[in-house]
């Protein structure tokens, strides 16, 4: 048994955020149907692809986020397609949708207020207001959210994080709320409609600079890299790469000073008094760097963690999977993904976001991501369409 066994979720829109929103449902046991246009969901078009050959079934985000779902290729721009969707929604617990706002309003308007599923509508700016119909993407919602500004150096352009990190966060916000809405309805019988506006979901989260500013006018200095004011904070070079410190405050700072052979520095007000420490940054750094230069990043990690210092090695994508903790916990898993040819693709994804009742639990079980329209026939069978009716839909270009 998986924790979400028996739940039925319908995903509409094919965007990155919608695909992310339903992934955890699927991996933890719910039945998820991905309704996508016969031309394929947007999430299928995002690189990287194996051997850089674009294909609707082998995009990395599709293979990572559409795990275990069933794909129904359906043109919702037709009455025929909408009839199929309305049958699919009968008995569903949740509809997660992202469409252009006028289409989204129309879709939600067709959900029965009493017997229909709970809904989560994903948008950029919300369903109302002067910007409601604006199109945004990962880059622009990130700029709106105030994060890009903080993630920059004064005088240079603000930066996003890794591509699509913003949209993934929006999707996980939507997924969490969808499950809460299902739970709430079980408790009090009330159907709920949730609206997740990407800009609000990012701007309202805890790392938003707006909140800090709104409390005390704080604007973090955009000096980049190693902080001169709160140190050590940031990446420092060592023998074979870099380590990342977050060790400015007690007890971490005195612990670090002891470990590198300058115990007196840990309590010296020149380095600990907020009013003085900035002007002594170079002195501190000149003592730390030679110590780091003779050591490898993992040696520093283990030695300083044992001494009670918050530090971590900076790893690249080739290193994260062979890290000792990743290996011990099987933090990454490899799936056999059906590819365009006969041979499956060996595809590695990050594992469970949390472990439920032990590392060996079967609560989280990702299946392969579906080919476009792979389960269209199977689903139309389940929805009671005869084979002649299914051919009629196919002949009319509604299904694929």
């Amino acid at each position: 048994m998986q924790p979400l066994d028996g739940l039925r979720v319908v995903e509409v829109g094919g965007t990155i955020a919608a695909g992310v929103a339903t992934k955890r449902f699927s991996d933890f046991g719910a039945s998820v149907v991905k309704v996508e246009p016969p031309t394929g969901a947007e999430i299928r078009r995002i690189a990287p692809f194996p051997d850089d050959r674009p294909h609707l079934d082998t995009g990395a985000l599709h293979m990572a986020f559409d795990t275990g779902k069933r794909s129904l290729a359906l043109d919702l721009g037709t009455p025929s397609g909408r009839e199929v969707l309305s049958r699919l929604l009968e008995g569903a617990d949740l509809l997660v949708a992202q469409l252009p706002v006028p289409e989204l309003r129309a879709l939600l308007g067709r959900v029965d207020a009493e017997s229909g599923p709970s809904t989560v509508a994903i948008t950029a700016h919300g369903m109302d207001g002067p910007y409601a119909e604006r199109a945004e993407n990962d880059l622009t919602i990130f700029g709106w959210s105030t994060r890009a500004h903080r993630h920059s150096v004064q005088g240079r352009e603000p930066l996003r994080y890794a591509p699509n990190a913003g949209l993934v966060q929006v999707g996980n916000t939507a997924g969490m709320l969808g499950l809460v809405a299902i739970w709430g309805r079980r408790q009090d019988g009330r159907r709920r409609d949730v609206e997740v506006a990407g800009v609000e979901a990012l701007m309202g989260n805890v790392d938003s600079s707006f909140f800090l500013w709104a409390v005390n006018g704080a604007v973090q200095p955009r000096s980049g890299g190693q902080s001169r004011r709160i140190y050590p904070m940031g990446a420092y070079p060592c023998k074979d790469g870099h380590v990342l410190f977050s060790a400015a405050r007690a007890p971490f700072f005195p612990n670090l000073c002891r470990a590198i052979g300058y115990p007196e520095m840990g309590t010296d007000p020149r380095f600990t008094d907020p009013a003085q420490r900035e002007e002594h940054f170079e002195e501190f750094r000149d003592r730390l760097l030679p110590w780091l230069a003779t050591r490898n990043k993992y040696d520093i990690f283990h030695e300083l963690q044992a001494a009670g210092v918050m530090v971590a090695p900076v790893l690249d994508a080739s290193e994260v999977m062979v890290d000792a903790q990743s290996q011990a916990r099987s933090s990454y898993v490899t799936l056999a993904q059906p590819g365009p040819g006969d041979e499956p693709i060996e595809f590695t994804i990050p594992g469970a976001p949390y472990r439920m009742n032990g590392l060996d639990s079967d609560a989280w079980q990702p299946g392969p991501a579906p080919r476009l329209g792979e389960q269209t026939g199977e689903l139309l069978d389940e929805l009671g369409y005869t084979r002649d009716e299914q051919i009629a839909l196919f002949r009319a270009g509604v299904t694929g």
Partner: protein
Amino acid sequence: MSGEALRGLRVVELSEVWAGPFGCSLVGDLGADVIKLETYPRNSETRPLREPDPRVADGDGPVYERVNTHHHGNRNKRNIAVDVRTPEGAEVLRRLIGWADLLVESFSAGTIDRMGFGWETVHALNPRVSMVSLAGWGQEGPYDGYVMFGVGFDAMAGHASVRGYPDGTMADMIPILHSDATVPLAWIFGMVGALMERERTGEGSYLDLAQIEELSTNVPQLIAEWTLNHRLPQRLGDSDPHIVPHGCYRAGGEDAWVNIAAQDDRQWGALAGVAGHPEWAEDGHPWASAAGRVRERAAVDAAVGAYAASDDAWAIADRLQAAGVIAAPVLAPGDPLLSPQLHAREWFQAVDHPYLPNRLLGGFLWRMRPDGPAWDRRAALVGEHNAEVLGELGYGAGEIEALSAAGVIGDRYPGPA
């Protein structure tokens, strides 16, 4: 609060900084009864005792009640301050566990066991309670007991190595706390899953969330570049390898920036029209096709950049958006107040607080009908609900007074040295 989807759910928070506490505020927004068990007599990381501190607002009253990082991560909960390392304080926690549906803790791995409240003990005290542990590297594995904040998980998950300016170095990399934003979304999802599991089994579940593992689920393409094509992902800045234009351009005015992207030929044609160069999108022009724009990336970026610099960022974005092009200003920390959209949606929240009076703070991550979230409880003061909560747990007034006199509970931290 005023949300009711999680009404009746009882949550105990034994957690500092953001990933645990902010998640508990979200759960509070959704209607749960959340009790924050504040560390005592040691102050928490988000409650500094001394000024000056860039996190602290000017004003009267205790320094630790005026902290920006604390205030906005702690709405919609009650607060008790208890020294759980004393036998009497541990008894308070035992009673809370008997009361609760969920215990959230974010100590380094092994700490909660040494405190006498490991999962087996908690489960024995109350078989129906679930527990979420948020140690950075998880509960099991060779890094047992290691300590870090989100900036370190970001470095170790491979994210830091792809952030930053394409021409930059690792030493220039700006530390971020992305996992503090993403981890709460995951553990709340897991918590509801545990509630559903309890309906079948009658028993609570244990969630071991390693923050580094959860963070990595947000960036699966990083390892995909490596495993599919044996290539390390690079620092892209704001560019996209396959979409041109896609970037952040300097707008008119000082330190002003506008993000612009044309994801297909239609958007590109609209952009070209707005910029006064419809010929850029006409058949035969080298920039008319998506492939041509990738080929001539630098020239396209320069042309778009010249247009972006011709006016204020908001005006540029307004004109491009009116034509259906993805474009938006880049907001500095106080700039959200300039957004007509956020005002039209009544997103901002007026919040009063004894030591941070009348602030206009940010709003919620979602709307929910019929029971949307509301900021019913400002961040509580240290120990503000000691008497109320301990009373509910069965302590008499005399007992509460004795606990206070013995220093087991309290409502203030020591003043500046």
